[in-house]
């Protein structure tokens, strides 16, 4: 095991796959010579050269369009959209073209591509550089949606996404880039569509994603030590495909579910999870399903204000306590 940062795990995952498969290319703004604005792709240009690691103009439609065209003609491209908020300027290519073309053409082509993007808040960047938009992608049939919380998952799930024959939206939580963690040595490839049980408890299941996972874990520790409440924490990791079995099994054991979501309230991923659990486990539930989310507001910039709206450890603890007591 080597200790890598979340950002180093990005480059390690891409490099592992580029070494293995000459059809893998990587393109985006400032990703090659500069190594990415978050320095998550440093070293790739040196190792693989400018034919495979390409700096693009500030042209999100061209980046995503070129990625789609390359994928439908035999390559396995990886694109970077610098901030996930910028998907708003190329959403046609993602939502109308990449997601639907296989279906519309009666399965004549497929799109083995990955679009990586820095997603989420906590970095004081304000409302247009901080959104958590996994649920935008999740709402569209034809896109797989992944959001890792640890360096090991970044490498393993990124490798799995690159090998996957379908389009994968890969959301990296930007406030986690400097977090370090153990990453398995040698080739590391994980499996899409699998949630991870981070810790097991008996009173409540807390389901979380990306930056909300470490917060949920911290909350679980406080709940145990200060309130005698035993919580399971599940890292959802992959929204599409969604590992409902792991989730349903846990909730059937604890009888309670709390989701912790970074997105604004309406139509966040937790709403879908809650509806599945309500429909399939209603008679096993010991209380209402509770969603902890950012309120339905854009994200403010000032540290004090951003901290006020993003779900924090204290709010998770309070919500769980109220549910269990």
């Amino acid at each position: 095991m080597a200790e890598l940062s979340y950002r180093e795990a990005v480059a390690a995952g891409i490099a592992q796959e580029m070494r293995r498969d000459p059809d893998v290319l990587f393109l985006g703004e400032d990703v090659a010579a500069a190594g990415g604005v978050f320095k998550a792709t440093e070293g790739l240009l040196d190792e693989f050269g400018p034919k495979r690691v390409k700096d693009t103009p500030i042209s999100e439609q061209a980046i995503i369009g070129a990625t789609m065209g390359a994928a439908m003609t035999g390559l396995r491209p990886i694109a970077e959209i610098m901030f996930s908020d910028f998907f708003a300027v190329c959403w046609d290519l993602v939502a109308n073209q990449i997601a639907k073309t296989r279906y519309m053409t009666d399965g004549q082509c497929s799109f083995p591509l990955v679009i990586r993007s820095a997603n989420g808040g906590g970095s004081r960047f304000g409302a247009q550089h901080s959104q958590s938009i996994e649920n935008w992608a999740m709402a569209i049939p034809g896109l797989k949606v992944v959001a890792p919380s640890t360096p090991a998952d970044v490498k393993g799930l990124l490798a799995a996404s690159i090998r996957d024959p379908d389009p994968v939206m890969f959301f990296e939580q930007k406030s986690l880039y400097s977090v370090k963690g153990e990453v398995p040595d040698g080739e590391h490839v994980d499996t899409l569509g699998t949630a991870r049980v981070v810790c097991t408890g008996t009173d409540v299941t807390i389901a979380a994603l990306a930056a909300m996972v470490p917060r949920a874990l911290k909350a679980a520790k406080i709940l145990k030590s200060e309130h005698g409440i035993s919580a399971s924490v599940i890292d959802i990791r992959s929204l599409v495909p969604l590992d409902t079995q792991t989730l349903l099994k846990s909730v059937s054991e604890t009888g309670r579910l709390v989701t912790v979501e970074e997105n604004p309230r309406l139509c966040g991923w937790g709403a879908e999870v809650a509806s599945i659990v309500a429909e399939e486990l209603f008679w096993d539930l010991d209380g209402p399903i509770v969603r902890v989310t950012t309120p339905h507001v854009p994200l403010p910039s000032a540290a004090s204000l951003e901290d006020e709206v993003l779900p924090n450890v204290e709010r998770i603890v309070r919500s769980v306590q109220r549910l269990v007591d």
Partner: protein
Amino acid sequence: MLECRGLEKRAYDLFMQNLVKGTSHLGLGQEAVAAGFGTAMRPDDYTFCTYRGHNHTLVRGVPMTAILGELMGRACGLLRGKGGSMHLTSIQHGVMGSYAIVGAHLPIAAGAALSAQYRKTQQVTTAFFGDGTTNIGAFHEALNLAVVWKLPVVFVCENNLYMEYTPIEQVTAVKNPAADRAAAYGLKPILIDGNDVDVVYETALAAYEKARSGDGPSLIEAQTYRHGGHSRADPGKYRPSEEVEAWLARDPITNYRARLEKLGIDGETLGRIEADVQAAVDLATETAKESPKPPLEIAGIDVWADGGAEWRN
């Protein structure tokens, strides 16, 4: 060109008989562009076109029955009814899709060209689009990227003088919407008579030669005119009748027939070709009409590469 004309006329008739539902955008009058480029291509070249793409699909060798069947939503349709008139695609013929969001396919075509360049296959990609498309961002992003990366792609603007209903000159900063913008991307302006199939063919050959020898993209503006309205049963009443008449006199097929006769091809031979094409259209129509509706279960498959549509376990 004759096959395109016959197919599109039949598509119109079928629409009026309510056998084609939804919408349909015909290329009547614009046949010379698709035919000229289609003839100049290699079989393994890629084409990307718009919702007005029946001609561009046919010229790559896609059977008429599959096209008419798709328009009618039948099992014999090219996409078995999952795409419809605006999305004709046949990967095996190099028809990489018909795109219904204005401009979307230009960057995608650049990506196919990037792939051919990377794989060193000498394939050239052609993207066909309308005059109105030159005012959307994707056009500019794709052109810039293609030039910066010297991609083997040919952008073909079919200037039929109108977007849907608005004359292009009312909404465009320059007179020739594509040609006058070529300089902004360091490209030579190429403005041609898109109703003269020989001119189109020669222009295409030169652009393909340039792309295959590694000299990058071309932007070609082909001036043409649609004989009918924008879509469905649009009678095109917003167009002055003198304009329509002038362009009908420049019909690519009538004029090419006259040229062939002048070159000594007798009327009997030409008449026979016309009759053969008509018979092929009739046969394709009857075959498509007899084809059943597609099996209902295909509505729920092929979201993913494994053929399925599962999103959970």
